[in-house]
């Protein structure tokens, strides 16, 4: 008798357990997606966590796992993930890396994953920046057009009017020479060498012939510009670190130590000056970035991509659109000086109303510049290697290893060889 009741007890427990498991799997039938960001911890841990929680609340059947990756290893980690077949669904990259991965077929286009009215709110130039043949491979998240952040005290000391920062690159060059001569402090340290865009002073000029088949940057105007900047370097008016690794953060470090008069970079670096060197921040002011003849310049876009091999691309795209919706973008942009990537968000008076304080002035100045920003996409094979060749040409000219003409000729030869399809 006892044995029989034992069996009944056992089986009823099992049935109960089974029911619980079944019920819970129905309730918690979850889609899990993985979300990678680039170096946002620890400063923005709370913000991203709130984004994730907010989305999960709206979509109780979705679970978002958030991982923050240091920017300097993100590419390797993504590669490793792709190779292993277990990919994150939504990844935060910059426009350059996005194009790189898109070219290699590692990303999914968003055209089919989101409705047209959602896509059309993003700035078209930004969507186009990471598009190939009309397919958009990322949702732009935030953008940071450069501004000129300058130290009024140094300007004063050099005899320059602190309310008249340079408006063009030629003026910036002259100011830098004056500042170095009068105070011994470097005038500027623009980020000349970039990894997948042309050197900064070529930003105004097309690199390829109109049919895209030949490199034309060894023509006379280009040689002239390179010679001008190489002379600046040789004569000691540009810091020697401008050719080195990590130059773009070096400039912020130098500025924050009072070793640089003008910091020409994204406004989020101005924030770093505020956090790290408040005394320098106090004597700083902001102006639009110097412009070249074309009156346009490039800017850094951070975006979200959907990786090919994601198990839930629609959910991933939906989450990416949520992160980059107007409300969330505005909230993010209020924490640090970056800018939205969609028209509806830019309408917020936060980006246009001055209130007399420096942070607001920085923000409004940069927001105004958004209209000057262009995104030129280079349809070239192996962009890493080709831009490396161009950077090498600049380095060689700066260091006097080659004449500017020869340096550019050699780089053009590399480009032409690649463009001819070898």
């Amino acid at each position, binding site marked *: 008798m006892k044995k029989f009741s034992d069996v009944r007890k056992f089986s009823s427990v099992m049935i109960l357990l089974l029911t619980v498991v079944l019920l819970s799997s129905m309730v918690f039938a979850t889609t899990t997606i993985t979300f990678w960001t680039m*170096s946002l*911890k*620890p*400063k923005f841990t709370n913000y991203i966590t709130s984004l994730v929680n907010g989305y999960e609340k709206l979509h109780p059947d979705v679970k978002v796992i958030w*991982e*923050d990756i*240091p*920017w*300097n*290893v993100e590419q*390797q*980690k993504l590669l*490793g993930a792709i*190779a*292993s*077949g*277990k990919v994150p669904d939504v990844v935060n990259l910059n426009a350059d890396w996005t194009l790189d991965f898109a070219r290699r077929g590692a990303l999914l286009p968003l055209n089919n994953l989101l409705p047209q009215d959602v896509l059309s709110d993003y700035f078209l130039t930004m969507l186009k920046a990471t598009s190939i043949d009309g397919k958009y491979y990322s949702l732009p998240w935030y953008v940071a057009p450069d501004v000129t952040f300058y130290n009024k005290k140094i300007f004063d000391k050099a005899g320059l009017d602190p309310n008249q920062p340079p408006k063009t690159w030629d003026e910036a060059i002259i100011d830098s020479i004056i500042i170095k001569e009068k105070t011994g402090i470097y005038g500027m340290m623009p980020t000349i060498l970039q990894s997948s865009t042309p050197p900064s002073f070529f930003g105004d000029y097309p690199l390829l012939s109109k049919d895209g088949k030949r490199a034309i940057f060894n023509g006379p105007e280009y040689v002239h510009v390179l010679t001008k900047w190489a002379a600046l370097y040789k004569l000691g008016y540009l810091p020697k670190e401008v050719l080195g690794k990590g130059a773009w*953060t070096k400039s*912020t*470090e*130098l500025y*924050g*130590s*009072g*070793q640089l008069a003008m910091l020409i970079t994204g406004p989020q*670096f101005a924030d*770093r000056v505020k*956090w*790290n*060197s*408040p*005394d*320098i921040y106090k004597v700083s002011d902001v102006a639009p970035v110097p412009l070249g003849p074309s009156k346009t310049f490039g800017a850094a876009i951070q975006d979200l991509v959907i990786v090919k091999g994601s198990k839930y691309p629609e959910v991933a795209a939906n989450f990416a659109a949520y992160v980059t919706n107007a409300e969330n973008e505005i909230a993010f942009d209020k924490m640090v000086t970056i800018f939205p990537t969609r028209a509806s968000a830019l309408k917020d008076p936060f980006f246009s109303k001055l209130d007399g304080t420096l942070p607001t002035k920085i923000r409004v100045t940069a927001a105004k510049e958004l209209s000057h920003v262009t995104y030129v996409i280079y349809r070239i094979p192996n962009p890493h290697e080709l831009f490396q060749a161009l950077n090498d040409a600049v380095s060689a000219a700066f260091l006097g290893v080659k004449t500017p003409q020869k340096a550019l000729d050699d780089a053009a030869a590399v480009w032409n060889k690649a463009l001819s399809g070898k």
Partner: protein
Amino acid sequence: MDKRKKTNYVSVMTLMIFFAIITTFPYYWTLKTSLEVSSNVYKFPPDIIPNPATFKNYTVVWNQLGLVRYYLNSILLTSVGVVVNVFLAAMAAYPLARFNFYGKKIVFFLILLPLMLPFQGGLIVNYLTLRNMHLLNTYTGVILPLAVSAFGIFLFRQAYLGIPKDFEDAARIDGAGEFYIWLRIMTPLISPTISAFAILQAITWWDIFLWPLIVLSDSQKYPLAVALMYLNSTFQTNFKYTAAGMILATLPLIIAFLFMQRFFIKGLTAGGVKY
């Protein structure tokens, strides 16, 4: 005679102090940077002594990064890594020293070979292997590819060679099995060498950076050096914080070594380290 001894002493001391300054100055500089108040690292002329000095950078780094977790991770990883390496190296070295067997020379050469090869190739392949074994994001996955040290095998082989045959002969006559002989008799006899090797391994495991970064995806599992990497990329333009992080990461190992250095030197001397 006395005068020459004195000048000898002075010149030796001068040379030693000179080397000591070169060795320790970077640490002083980093320490000083971590105690500074404002971003004066590139100030020219630089401050030799921080004035005013503050511990604020340490508290910021400690709180922002939750360093306790990473210390614990590193301690765990280091302990297991060292034990596994010592055990496996001793196990492999023993037959190479005490047995005469077919293929001994080939085995010896095969162990030497990987020492001579660059490391980058292994990274990706091992990552994929771990994935197939479902060992990604685990400490096992971090330790396993690095569990056998050819250097350790050589070191222990040399040490085993130095033990007179009488010990194992006596044990064999008493009927002990080979494994027992190895574990309970021969290995304890080379404990100075084991200490020296363990200390070197501990250093490697405490500082290890690239491999755990690739294998582990859960940032809560990262060891200290990887957490420091985060620190550097996040606080990139504020080196006071980076400097504080560097001191916090390095100091425990230095203190630990101060206690261990007697065993270390003894171990190197006793075991003999040559081929």
